């Protein structure tokens, strides 16, 4: 039973599909495309908010926690995503924004930019 929202990779991709209105197969955006955006979001979060990842790479709680590892998720499955609860929705926004960047309609471009901005805003980056 889930104890919090957006716990696994599948949760993030599933929520992104809801906002993309792409929940019925055959999907407009493939799992691989959305997963790539999700991992790019992790990388971007690592760049903007390094403190989120402090402690994630520690093998023991008594080892100094200044060796953060950049997580990578290779498949859309039930692998838990180790990310602070209050910032998880930001990854959904980035995944959506990245997916919509590939479209060349003007309104999609605007939505892509808006979702990327929401990603930064949600992370609290000025």
């Amino acid at each position, binding site marked *: 039973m889930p104890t919090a929202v957006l716990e696994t990779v599948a949760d993030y991709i599933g929520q992104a599909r809801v906002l993309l209105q792409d929940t019925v197969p055959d999907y407009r955006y493939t799992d691989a495309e959305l997963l790539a955006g999700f991992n790019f979001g992790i990388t971007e979060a690592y760049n*903007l*908010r390094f*403190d*989120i990842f*402090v*402690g994630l790479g520690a093998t023991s*709680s*008594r*080892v*100094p*926690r*200044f060796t953060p590892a950049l997580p990578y998720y290779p498949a859309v499955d039930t692998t838990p995503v180790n990310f*602070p609860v*209050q*910032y998880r929705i930001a990854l959904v926004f980035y995944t959506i924004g990245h997916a919509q960047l590939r479209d060349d309609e003007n309104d999609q471009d605007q939505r892509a930019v808006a979702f990327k901005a929401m990603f930064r805003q949600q*992370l*609290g*980056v*000025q």
Partner: protein
Amino acid sequence: MASVEIARLITNLQLRLPGALANAMQTEMFVVMDKFFKSSNIWREDITFEVAGQDPPNTTYTITPAGSSLINKLLWIYDVTDTTVVSPPQVMGGMRIPGEIVLSLQPAENRVYQATVVLTVTDPTQRDGYVEFPDWILSKYRDVIEDGVLGRMMSQPNKPYTNLPLAQFHTRQFTSGVSTARVDAKTQNVYGAQTWRYPQTFAVYRQRRGGF
């Protein structure tokens, strides 16, 4: 360290740092505590070590503190071989490398010396990731530690809790609190006490004997 005390501190910090993460606060807290102890000299420990009479001059005596801590300064050394002496004589020595004592004058016979050293924090931290130091220091200087962590956290660039004016304010409060702690250490927490006493080793006369 009592988890209740730490939980209260972290809760207070999170109220003032929207979006701050525990790991980031733990990291800054380590730096704050290190600065606090090095500047205030409040954390002290007495460590006894034996000196053999036949040791050559400039012999190095290695001392290690009891818990997870690092020796920062040497305050003084006393000769505590004779436990019946009320005012043990002071011994001169130095510590070029923290933890390694070299005596100015090597004794002719076996002696037991007690070195009082100032400590600071070190790795590894506790199992929950928080830096380790005596409980009473957090209880007594909670507000000072809180100001220190707030100052450092708020000075981080591009964070939801970044606030440079408040960072300066809290850092000033922290510096003031460290000064208070330094005085407390000198007066050994006695209210209104003078920080200096006439060296008792020079006290030849006693009042009880009418000055003779």
